[in-house]
């Protein structure tokens, strides 16, 4: 017999029952004290769920609110130099830069005269796009047929009193329009007449001089759009609408900061809930602990046993809680923003690690207290 094979088999013999005993103790401990284990798990699940929901919301709220802020309309404007039209390729350039991440609407303007000789600004645009871009426009009916016009509330009194058909002339050419709807915005749009781009170009031959763009995304992405457009369209002015961009950044920042504070508070509270439940659970099993110690279990084994139990509990709670938390986040997204929050799976490791750490800490505290006590004292029930 060679000495190393002895030690090998001995190690195997020691190792094998040890592992199975360890597992068995873990499982039996949970099964036997179902009530306590379930309540500890429940606390874990709730905490993990709340934390997941809050983190998901925190990450997603920026995207959701940005979408709301796009209701403020264009954040980038491309304007031709004074008195000129935009170069003909500008529309394609804008579309290629946006690549679907935003809306762009062209506007062409002329000053026309009514039959009575009153001046009025007439604009040609794409109604379908305007409707999406400028959602604050209060319109009685959107024009749908050719020769239909959208008449500003103030312009209406001048160009079509009592809803009469409109006759406008520009450079000797006359157009007859049918006032399909009334427009109210409270700003300069109220003094204008809007017609479709087709009608406008047939009538005046004037090309768009302004493109209003609602670029979606972060301030950096919007600035990227501005820079790309500026290089593509050197003959036009491309400018971010500072009013919109700054307001958005400010409100978004404050909202996120508040949400962060709230999340921190909520996660802290639920972590404390877990801490108190788990501490009670471990403390409650001081008899098991004392018996194990009295039977000669090493300190590492006992610590390992309780740590493994806590870790398993933490991990199981985290996984279950993650699923529930994502559900809560999706529900909040639907209820408040009418769009579901996209589950963030990169939150999962965070939740998992956090839960296990909290579980370990809550197991370690009572353990530390029990380590110092003689098993006999505990077993006597003192």
């Amino acid at each position, binding site marked *: 017999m060679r000495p190393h094979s002895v030690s090998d088999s001995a190690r195997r013999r020691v190792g094998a029952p040890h592992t199975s005993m360890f597992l068995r103790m873990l499982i039996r401990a949970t099964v036997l004290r179902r009530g*306590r284990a379930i*309540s500890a798990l429940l*606390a874990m699940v*709730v*905490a993990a769920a*709340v934390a997941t*929901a809050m983190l998901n919301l925190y990450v997603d709220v920026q995207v*959701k609110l940005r979408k*709301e*802020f796009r*209701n*403020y*309309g264009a954040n980038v404007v491309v*304007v031709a130099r*004074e008195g000129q039209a935009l170069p003909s390729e500008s529309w394609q350039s804008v579309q290629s830069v946006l690549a679907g991440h935003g809306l762009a609407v062209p506007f062409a*303007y002329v*000053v026309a005269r009514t039959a009575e000789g009153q*001046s009025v*600004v007439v604009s040609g645009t794409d109604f379908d796009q305007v409707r999406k871009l*400028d*959602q*604050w426009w209060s319109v009685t009916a959107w024009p749908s047929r050719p020769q239909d016009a959208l008449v500003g509330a*103030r312009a209406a009194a*001048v160009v079509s009193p009592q809803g009469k058909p409109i006759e406008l002339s520009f450079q000797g050419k006359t157009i007859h329009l049918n006032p399909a709807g009334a427009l109210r*915005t*409270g*700003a300069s749009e*109220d*003094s204008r007449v809007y017609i479709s781009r087709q009608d406008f170009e047939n009538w005046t031959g004037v090309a768009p*001089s302004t493109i209003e763009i609602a670029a979606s995304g972060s301030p950096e992405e919007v600035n990227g759009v501005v820079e790309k457009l500026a290089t593509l369209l050197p003959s036009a*002015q491309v*400018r971010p*609408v*500072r*009013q*919109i*961009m*700054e*307001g958005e950044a400010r*409100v978004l920042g*404050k*909202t996120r*900061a*508040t*949400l962060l504070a*709230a999340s921190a*508070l*909520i996660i*802290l*509270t*639920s972590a404390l*809930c877990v801490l*108190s*439940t788990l501490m*009670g659970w471990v403390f*409650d099993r001081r008899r098991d602990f004392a018996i194990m110690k009295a039977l000669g279990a090493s300190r590492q084994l006992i610590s390992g046993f309780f740590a493994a139990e806590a870790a398993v509990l933490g991990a199981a709670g985290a996984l279950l809680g993650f699923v529930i938390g994502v559900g809560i986040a999706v529900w*909040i997204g639907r*209820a*408040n*923003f009418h769009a579901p929050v996209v589950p963030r799976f990169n939150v999962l490791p965070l939740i998992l690690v956090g839960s296990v750490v909290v579980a370990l800490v809550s197991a370690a505290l009572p353990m530390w207290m029990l380590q110092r006590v003689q098993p006999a004292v505990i077993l006597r029930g003192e």
Partner: protein
Amino acid sequence: MFVRLVYESFRRQKRRKVLAGIAITLGVGVATAMIAVATDIGDKISRELRTYGANLLVTPQDDTLDLQIGGVDLKPPSDGAYLSEADLPKIRGTFWHHNIVGFSPMLPVTVGVRTDGGTSNLTLLGTYFSKQLSFGKEDFVTGVKITHPWWKVQGAWPDDNSQDVLLGVSLASALGRKAGEQIEIAGQGHRISGILSTGGVEDGQIVAPLSLAQQILGRPGAVRRLYVSAMTKPEDALARRDPKTMNTELFERWYCSPYVQSIAYQLQEAIPHSHAEQIRQVAQTEGTVLSRIKGLMLLVTLAALLASALAVSAAMATAIFERRSEVGLMKALGSGGASIAALFFVEGALLALMGGTIGFAGGALLARAIGQSIFNSRITIDPVLFPLILAIAVVVTFAGSALAIRRAVNLDPVHALRGEA
């Protein structure tokens, strides 16, 4: 005997009572802070949304049609009607004057400016920068610095009573002028106190104190437009109704709500011959954004309340569960289930009241800290909430204890004393 039991329980089991008390205190503190933040967030965000600028526009009632393309006014300056500058301070006398953050009058004038190549016609916009005004005994400051917070000046803002002007940034680069230089406007030399950048049409204009614009136009006291920035309540069904169709009671309610419509109505009352209209881009969108953020905070507050209720319940359940040998002893000595339950409930109520009081104070401080650090303004908590929060704390503590108490009462004393439960 009962009182003594409770007293001794508190005296002898300090560690457990302190742990449960801490849980309640924290739970109530977080709940209080979140309720305070959620009730105040509308106001705070509303104030932040004012960075979007004015949400109301006041124009003369019988004004002619605007001929504005890309912010360039094509209307002859002789055309149209004006508001009177003397009427403006009356805005401070309206019902909702506390909600009016600021206002800025505007008077665009076309002026001839001497450039290197001769004279060119440019738009000069007269306005208030941060004008000192008084209404009754009240002094206040208003102007574009408040209503147009995105306007940035390189150099210095002109004084409202001076003859200095601001040059729009693109105009300045076209003319090759810098801050501190002189510019000849309408035959007179003026100092350029700063270069203005707005990201809007003003970048190509000259912006001057209102009095200078009136002087050039030759109409003292004239104002073309007035931008008003007011904090409003999101629109609802009542807001959209026509005030003319309301009965007196409904009208009172409408008039006394800070809807953008009712503030517009009051502005019209305050300024003679005026027409006030909401700037829908700002006013309407503000409503949606505000209601979204409020809704979000409400849901988050619910989550916070849930989390703190669970924390309190868990702590109470643990505290009671730990005392089952005590319960066994009491039962063995002949006490009934009702008296044991009463003992625990009274202890719970005492803990809830103490924890609730400390938690409320702590939560109020927390809310204040959040308000101070995020919004730079205080979040005040309504003292009316105090009894409500105490009541909630007691209810949650009871609810959390109920299950554990039931189990404690149903315990077999033999098992409990042997520690086998």
